[in-house]
């Protein structure tokens, strides 16, 4: 046997190490999944959210009535009325149908701002953490300004000044959630930046862009993502809250917060029908909260 085809002992050792490293990186997600499977509460919340998601996506197929078609003669029917299992609203529209359609806008307005803030906040936070110095100073001191407003007040102030509408509400909520994500992203990036493997990458000639893309993002995206999922619950409550105030969606569009507002006058006639949209917000919000807690534990993210 020639030396060229037989790997040396050192090479064999390296190959084994590489294989172990690959196995370990697969092992991380396998471990996360394994821990998640042993957590019945998180799985139950994920299942509830999945069912809700499918129901609102498939609303046109499964909803029994038209969400806009009302009738003056069957206004505010009780829960359990034939053909109207969850009753009717103040304009005689089927509650079940409107709740199904309403979930579409509520979910959209609850998740979109967090997604946008996740992208923008991660970019700015990683930039601040990795660049340090004056860039860090500029980004973090600007963040401090937004921290000087309570979040509800900031959302109401911006969407109140811009005027009612879905786009303005989403814009306002995105602005509310960017600063906290920047803070988390900056702090985890600063932690990673000083680790040895980043120095090693720099020493071996990797460009700043490569270091961020390969070494920094791979290590910071997990914690930032878990933090962002915990914001979905707050965002959903705030988004529906803005609609409740009349700052988000406009009638007759079905949206849980707005439905809650228009049904407020009905609490003396059909109280349990009137509080249904809020129950939907509550269930969604608590499931997202528990799912985020479960993810945090399974992914072993601190803080």
């Amino acid at each position, binding site marked *: 046997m020639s030396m060229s085809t037989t790997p040396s002992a050192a090479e064999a050792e390296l190959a084994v190490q590489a294989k172990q490293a690959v196995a370990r990186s697969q092992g991380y997600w396998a471990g996360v999944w394994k821990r998640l499977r042993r957590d019945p509460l998180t799985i139950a919340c994920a299942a509830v959210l999945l069912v809700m998601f499918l129901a609102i996506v498939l609303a046109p197929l499964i909803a029994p009535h038209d969400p806009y078609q009302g009738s003056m003669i069957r206004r505010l029917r009780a829960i359990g009325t034939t053909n109207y299992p969850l009753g009717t609203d103040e304009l005689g529209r089927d509650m079940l149908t409107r709740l199904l359609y309403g979930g579409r806008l509520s979910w959209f307005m609850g998740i979109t701002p967090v997604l946008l803030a996740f992208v923008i906040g991660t970019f700015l936070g990683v930039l601040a953490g990795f660049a340090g110095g004056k860039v860090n100073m500029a980004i973090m001191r600007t963040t401090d300004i937004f921290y000087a407003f309570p979040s509800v*007040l900031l959302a109401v102030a911006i969407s109140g000044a811009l005027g009612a509408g879905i786009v303005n509400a989403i814009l306002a909520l995105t602005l509310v959630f960017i600063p906290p994500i920047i803070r988390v992203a900056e702090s985890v990036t600063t932690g990673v930046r000083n680790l040895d493997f980043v120095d090693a990458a720099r020493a071996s000639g990797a460009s700043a862009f490569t270091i961020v893309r390969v070494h920094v993002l791979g290590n910071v995206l997990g914690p930032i993502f878990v933090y962002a999922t915990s914001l979905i*619950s707050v965002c959903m409550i705030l988004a529906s809250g803005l609609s409740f105030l009349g700052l988000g969606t406009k009638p007759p569009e079905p949206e849980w917060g707005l439905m809650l507002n228009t049904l*407020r006058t009905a609490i003396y006639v059909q109280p349990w029908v009137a509080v249904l949209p809020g129950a939907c917000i509550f269930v969604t919000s608590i499931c997202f909260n528990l799912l985020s807690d479960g993810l945090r534990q399974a992914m072993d993210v601190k803080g």
Partner: protein
Amino acid sequence: MLFYLIRRIIYAIPIALAVGFVCFMLVQIAPGDPINAIVPADAPGDVVEQVRRDYGLDKPLPVQFGIWLSKVVQGDLGRSLATGRSVWSDLSGAIQNTLMLAVAASLIGFTLGCVLGGLAGTFRGSFIDRAAVSVAVAGVSVPHYWLGMVLVVIFSVQLNWLPAMGAGPGGSGDWAWDWEHVKHLVLPAVTLAVIPMGIVTRTVRGIIAEIMNQEFVTALRGKGLTRGGIFLHVVKNAAPNALAVMGLQLGYLMGGSILVETVFSWPGTGLLLNNAIFQRDLPVLQGTILVLAMFFVALNLAVDLVQTALDPRIKRA
């Protein structure tokens, strides 16, 4: 300590200025000409031009900010478009009402949160711990405006025990400390208390659990100290951080009561904001946000200073 105090106060000044700038910009980002925030829409053209010059709205933005700021510092928040009264005259009464609601809500929320969180942190893994964690998750997940409606359905509509809205009998604005008035405060305060209760429970549980794991607690126990004695030591260690979280929560309640005030028609800053938004009364919107945000900045500062004063371990020079 004195040096830290001065430095911290000096650091709050640029933050306060920046907050002022954000509030100033609120009127600028509003659709339409900011002049519409001052003169009625049907005013003749030459009057509009006159007002534009008087208010300095023909000058560049930084100059305008300077003019606005110098007025605000002198306590002039402008005039309401809807009522013509000065913004401050409406605002001062509303702030008192909101402060009362927020303080009542924090008393309820902080007490429950400390008790639940303390028990949960002391007896980790017990039934009480699981119950407290569930209550805390529910507290931070519940849309409080909806909870307010549910409470109204139960206690006003069904049981007819408590009034559903307003701050006094017959819609009178004067507050008095008798049951007729206090019963109006019960439902809004309980509703608003749910969020701080959840957050304080979570925080206190975490702080207590961490302290209970430290060696000095084991040492105290080994020394033969009674449960009550150990409890005092733990409280002393937990207080600075717990108080800091609670202080900020009071600020969030002041700024975040708009939804609850809308549900209960509570005559505070939230209701004022809500009306201002729908009448496009930008001076009132701007003034209310500014005062609430400044209150929050001051509260942040106070919390920081109290925490430093209470905790000798924090040495900030």
